[in-house]
């Protein structure tokens, strides 16, 4: 009897995450699937928009990271507890849209429309930028799941 595809997918995700010895790869997402994801900002980050259109992100640093000596040295040398990341105008525009309500597709369309970019160019640059933000843990991706 064939397995329900939804159950099969869940099992695959579970096995890839919690049973690494099985060497099952997590399911790959195709392009259309990736465009339906909703990026949302990391709640620990704060940001402000400057007059020139730039956006300044404040990223808190983990002060409890490292050994005792590292922490002591960091305290003694007054290491900064946060880091600042400046986004340009386009980056700031995309950042504002990362509120968990807009899909990647919508962000691509809005950015393309705002800056009069070709659809493909907008898609490439926005997805690359979102990927970079995700790698730095500034954003996460949500998937809207329908309640059955």
């Amino acid at each position: 009897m064939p397995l329900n595809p939804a159950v099969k997918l869940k099992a695959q995700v579970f096995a890839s995450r919690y049973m690494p010895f099985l060497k099952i790869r997590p399911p790959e997402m195709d392009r259309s699937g990736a465009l339906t994801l909703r990026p949302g900002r990391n709640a620990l980050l704060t940001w402000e928009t400057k007059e020139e259109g730039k956006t300044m992100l404040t990223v808190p640093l983990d002060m409890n990271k490292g050994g005792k000596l590292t922490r002591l040295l960091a305290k003694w040398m007054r290491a900064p507890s946060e880091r600042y990341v400046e986004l340009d105008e386009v980056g700031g525009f995309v950042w504002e849209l990362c509120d968990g309500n807009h899909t990647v597709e919508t962000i691509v369309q809005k950015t393309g429309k705002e800056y009069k970019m070709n659809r493909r160019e907008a898609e490439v640059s926005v997805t690359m930028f979102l990927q970079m933000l995700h790698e730095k843990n500034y954003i996460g991706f949500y998937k809207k799941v329908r309640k059955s």
Partner: protein
Amino acid sequence: MQKGATASDREAQTALPARTVVGWQGVRFTLPPEWNVTAFSLDRDNGYVRVDSPGSGAMSVQVRWTDASKEVKGPPTPYYLLAPYFRRLLKRPPPPVTKTDLRQSLEKILKDAAKDAKKSHAVFDSQMKSEKTEGENGERSSISFTWTGAGRGQGKIWRCDTCNRVVVSQVIGLSKDHNAIGNVASQLFATFQDHTIDGYDLWALYDLQAAVPSTFRLTAHKLMSGHLQLVFMRGAERIIIDRWGLANVTLKKFKLDEWFLTNSAIKSANMVRTSTTAFGGHEFISFEGALPVSGRMAAVRDAKGSMRGLPTRYSGGVWHCAETNKLFSIQVFHSRKTEKLIENILERCKCH
């Protein structure tokens, strides 16, 4: 629009431009809006262009061409290497090139499609129509074909007696896209041109439309998100065409002429701002100057030692197209004989 789209998703629906013009290595055609070039070859004699539909890119247009007037290259034996020189020395005409058998070439293409169908366990079927003559002066002999297998394809193969090119172009899509493939194919074949009439090749992709003399060859390109650059050479003469996106962001920081001078291919104190002319409703800021000796030497080096058309002058210019929010620039390294080159290119450019 996907199911479950919110109001903001629907709001982002944009107005579509009229159509997409594609121009590459002398071939040009028109497709529905938002189609984009995704693959191409730099070779002019045996070329390839692929244009994908927007969205999932399930449909694509593939165009392949070969120069039928060129001899089929054999192994590099002494005969093949020396024969052209002796022919020229003895003033003998080159051997007649046998005309390409279209039907045979087409059978080869369909055979490859059948192989793909076999791999995906699909039933392959193809149809070929009889050869017919078409074109304004009856210069084309063509065969139309369709196939179904691992998808569906509708195309045409033809030989043009004017440019001696054999062109195969086809629209490929999913089996269910029967009508859409037909519509795109009819638009493609109705607008397809395989050679130029005025001696200028159209280069059109990603909102850039520029025409360059057919004697220039594409030698380098940059295709980045936000920046597109095409570099053409004829001997030591060089044309550089750039298209930059996000002009409104750039122009907040710089003035147009300042920005051009920092991004131009040559940094020289000899460059003088010559004029500001109106071009298509935009302000075209142009610069001119004599090439310094180092620039001339660099031009010869880039041309692999060729002194043909040794550039002694530089002409360049930039304009901002507010309609498309882009900056366009043309730079020409030319000799005194080709003073008007930049003007000729400029009057054939289209930005919106």
